[in-house]
Structure formats: C-alpha cells, structure tokens
C-alpha cells in the first residue's frame, strides 16, 4: 500500500462494467514519507467514507480489485484501503502537519 492525498472527485458512467455498483472514483496524489507528491496522480476506486483533502493509504495492481467488497473480478487498478488519521514519521505527525 502507498500513502496518498485525495484531491478531487469524479463521476464516470461505467454501465458496461458490472460489479462497480456503489464504487466511487476520486482523484488521488500518491505521497512519499515526507508527505511530498510521489509519482503521477491517479483515479482510485473508493468505497470507504473518505473525500477530498483526506490522507489515505491505497493499494494498486490486482489487489485493488480484491480490496472492493463483493464482486472482485473488476477492472480496477487502484483502491483506497484506509483513512489515515495519524502518520508518525521521525517524531512528527504528518497527518496533522497538513503535508
């Protein structure tokens, strides 16, 4: 899993893809251990109660589909797996420092 910051939301109609009911899409910036951007922003599937501004961890690859409840054979390559409330690195809490 990687750290990330959700920066936006998007709505996409995916009628042709069964198994994505209740899955929302959000725009996410992966972060490094200093809270700085790491790599390109990406679209992540979201079923947890998170939204723009939230610090999260997410998983990619095949595991992204496995992270979704119910039907797990869906074409998803990144899924938010948790809302990070505290990120203690080097004695600082990066979740509170608004990195």
């Amino acid at each position, binding site marked *: 899993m*990687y750290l990330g910051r959700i920066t936006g939301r998007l709505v996409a109609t995916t009628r042709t893809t069964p198994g994505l009911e209740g899955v929302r899409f959000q725009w996410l910036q992966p972060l490094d251990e200093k809270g700085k951007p790491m790599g390109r922003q990406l679209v992540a599937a979201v079923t947890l109660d998170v939204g723009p501004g939230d610090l999260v961890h997410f998983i990619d*690859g095949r*595991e992204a589909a496995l992270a979704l409840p119910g039907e797990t054979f869906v074409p998803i390559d990144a*899924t938010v797996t948790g809302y990070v409330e*505290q990120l203690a*690195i080097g004695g600082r809490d990066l979740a509170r420092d608004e990195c």
Partner: protein
Amino acid sequence: MLIAQVVGTVVAPVQIPLLEGRSLLVVRPVDPHGKPTGKTRVAIDRIGAGEGDRVLVIDEGNSGRQLLDAPQGAVKTVIVGFIDAIELGGRIVFDHRRGDIG
C-alpha cells in the same frame, strides 16, 4: 523480498475489513548499505517492528495472502522479519547492533 527501513507508523481508524486490528508501518526499501532504493510504502507488520528497525518485507500479493491466510485478501506488503546482519562479499555491511558499516 525487500530489505527496508521502518520509518514510521500509520493509524487508520477507517479501513477495509481485512486490515481491521492490524498494525501498519511505513517502510522505505533500502539496499544492503541502507541507501533508499524504492518507493516508501505502507506494510502490514506481523512481528512487532518499530521505527528504526531494518526489516525483511514480502511485497507480493500471493505470498501476502498466504501469510494472512486470506485467499481473497487485498494484501501485498507484509513485514516478515528483523534483519540482524547482512554480509556482502565476505564483509559485514549491516549489523542491527551497530547499523550500517561502511
């Protein structure tokens, strides 16, 4: 598997069910000399590691699922061991009591 340095801890109250109650640590992949070699990521800790430890990390789904006994689990990165020492070319380059040795 990766060698990694534990650089922090994650507290995440809202998570996918698989991760409930599991301890998460931030790990930085490093080479045998301790130099960063990859993207820092979040790992499931199975051994009670803490910030500052040099650890062995599995970073592959199938092994992760076996470790957690979760055949459909969304798991990839799991800490599986403490690294006590690394020998390279006949020389000890890392010892957990003294850290990186040149």
